[in-house]
């Protein structure tokens, strides 16, 4: 199997999707000849022509509005938003339109072909506007699916699934890992299922739950904890909506403890949803409060980014606290 970094895996997935289906069309700011500011769409214009891979004007609400229309027409648009921080001008088109298109029309029309790719998250000295993790804003919106890969293998498999899923999917790419994360990626066309979490490591004492770039923090924290004799079960949620409640519930019924972590601020973050659901479903089995390790309730900082980040040490401390409860 070839080794790829995450960008290569994404590029490869797009390439495969475009080769397999003429209806797949990629566009966004600087996506054309330049291949996107991160080069995720490199060479696609060369290969598939300007009609199927192109630059748009600089207008996110237009990009998604256009993509909605194109999807309604029967095409399979894969729109790139250059940074997740810049997805908000398109919020109305996503939340009021993409998400509600099928429902409001009684399934006469739908934008199921739509995929929105966008790099999210911190760790690149990006400050307020190149670091946000906005998944929770969209998770409150029935009608959307949301997937986040943690490594190149997932990136390819989940992105291909997202493109082919008959519902609009937001695909958040952990940009910190674009080049940092490498691994073996099958050459062929494959999909990973949306809506299914992955048990990355089994363990008996405590469940650690995350997605995307935070998985690295969780794995490092688990290493530290294992050294202290704590057996950790690690789950990668992979899909935020619909999220795999059963897998998490089963794990917590077994371990009795749960730590959830994400980069986004605490208040209103998706860890809250998870904690609320799990405390309800595992009430009698919980041995300690469900812990959330998250960003602070502030905008994303710059100089003190390291302090802000919910890193492995903070996750480790949460594990210890949970065990000691």
């Amino acid at each position, binding site marked *: 199997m070839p080794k790829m970094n995450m960008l290569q895996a994404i590029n490869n997935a797009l390439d495969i999707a475009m080769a397999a289906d003429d209806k797949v069309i990629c566009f966004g700011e600087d996506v054309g000849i330049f291949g996107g500011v991160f080069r995720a769409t490199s060479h696609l214009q060369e290969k598939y022509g300007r009609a199927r891979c192109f630059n748009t004007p600089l207008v996110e609400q237009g990009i998604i*509005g*256009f993509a909605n*229309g194109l*999807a*309604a*027409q029967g*095409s399979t648009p894969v729109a790139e938003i250059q940074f997740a921080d810049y997805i908000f001008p398109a919020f109305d088109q996503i939340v009021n*339109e993409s998400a509600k298109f099928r*429902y409001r*029309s009684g399934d006469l029309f739908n934008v199921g072909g739509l995929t929105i790719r966008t790099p999210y998250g911190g760790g690149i000295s990006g400050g307020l506007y190149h670091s946000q993790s906005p998944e929770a804003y969209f998770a409150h919106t029935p009608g959307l699916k949301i997937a986040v890969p943690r490594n190149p293998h997932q990136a390819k498999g989940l992105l291909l699934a997202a493109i082919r899923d008959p519902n609009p999917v937001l695909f958040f790419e952990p940009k910190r890992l674009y080049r940092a994360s490498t691994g073996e990626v099958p050459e062929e066309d494959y999909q990973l299922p949306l809506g299914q979490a992955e048990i990355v490591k089994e363990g008996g004492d405590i469940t650690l739950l995350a997605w995307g770039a935070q998985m690295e923090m969780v794995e490092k924290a688990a290493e530290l904890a294992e050294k202290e004799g704590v057996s950790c079960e690690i789950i990668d949620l992979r899909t935020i909506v619909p999220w795999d409640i059963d897998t998490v519930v089963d794990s917590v019924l077994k371990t009795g403890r749960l730590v959830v972590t994400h980069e986004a601020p605490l208040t209103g973050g998706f860890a809250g949803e998870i904690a609320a659901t799990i405390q309800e479903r595992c009430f009698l089995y919980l041995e300690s409060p469900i812990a959330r390790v998250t960003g602070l309730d502030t905008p994303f900082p710059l100089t003190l980014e390291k302090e802000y980040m919910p890193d492995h040490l903070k996750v480790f401390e949460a594990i210890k606290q949970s065990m000691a409860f």
Partner: protein
Amino acid sequence: MTTTTTAPVVHSLAFMNGDEFRIPVFKLLKRDGTPYKHAKLPELDKDKALRIYRAMLFTRVLDERMLAAQRQGRLSFYMQCTGEEATIIGSAAALDDEDMIMAQYREQGALAYRGFGVDEFMDQLFGNERDHGKGRQMPVHYGSKDLHYMTISSPLATQIPQATGYAYGQKLSGLGHCTLTVFGEGAASEGDFHAALNMASVHQVPVIFLCRNNGYAISTPAHEQFSADGIAPRAFGYHMKVVRVDGNDILAVYQATREARCWAVENNRPVLIEAMTYRLAAHSSSDDPSGYRSKKEEEAWRDKDPVLRMRLWLEQQGWWAEEDEKREQDTLRREVLEAMKRAEKRPPPPLESLVTDVYDQVPPLLAEQLDRLKEHIRKYPDAYPRGARGLKEDTQGSGGGEHA
């Protein structure tokens, strides 16, 4: 790439503001239905002319009846097309019937022209189990896949960039279709308008942007909406073809849209049409215009009635007469009333329709939510008569009177 424009160079400073030119208004018919001197009317055979006129009449009758029904408390809400029938139906008639229409909410005339049945109208208005939209949206949010009429969405202007994208897909599919998107002069203030027109121009798509400049956005008069002479001059900012028509002159609208369509489809290029018209009715059944405009102004526009103008023209062609009018009106009134009665009586959509179509399949959590809801309703069936219907074997009678 260079930003040097083809513009001339000057060494003394002069500001422009658009007063340097005017975009004229294209008219063909006078109020009495006769053509202006030198006006060359479009070719329109009798069948098509009557198809158009019948749609106009139907729309007028529908609007009258349904507003009345709303006033009687039989319907929760309604919006009239009244005064703008020529703009809507004239443009729809100029299209191929398979071209996509993406409208705002006041364009029922286009649907009527395409052949949306009176029962289809009523089922949507009453949100019953036969509504294509499954009773999920407020009245007038029609949609028809068969008739290539995109389901209406309340958030204004969102359909405009969608039309650009839809037309891009049409261009790629190469079948020679285009998209017509219709919106008010108020909606044209939204950011989505700018996005849509710019992208259409850059990506070269066959879309017709039809702005119904009817003078008001609810209570806000056009002069508090923008400062320019209408919407048309905006086209210059996108290097887009533009034409302005008398929106109450159906032949002018028809002709302008036909030429726009030809050009759009042949060249894969967008066109902007501004139709100057007037919203004769209130904004919606919830609105009372007396708070923001004068009866006198309304009267002045009532004199320019587009339906009457078309009728007068038809009479001059010898294609229509007093008796036709009477018979047609009677028939339409009866059909509308009968259909309304049928629609009112039809039961609401089944409880399951609450959770279907959120996704292509109902996800587990949502299925669970439905189960819990069913259980709850079984406990309190009287509190949820509509929801309880499908849960018991014996349904609860008609359900007709339940609509608020």
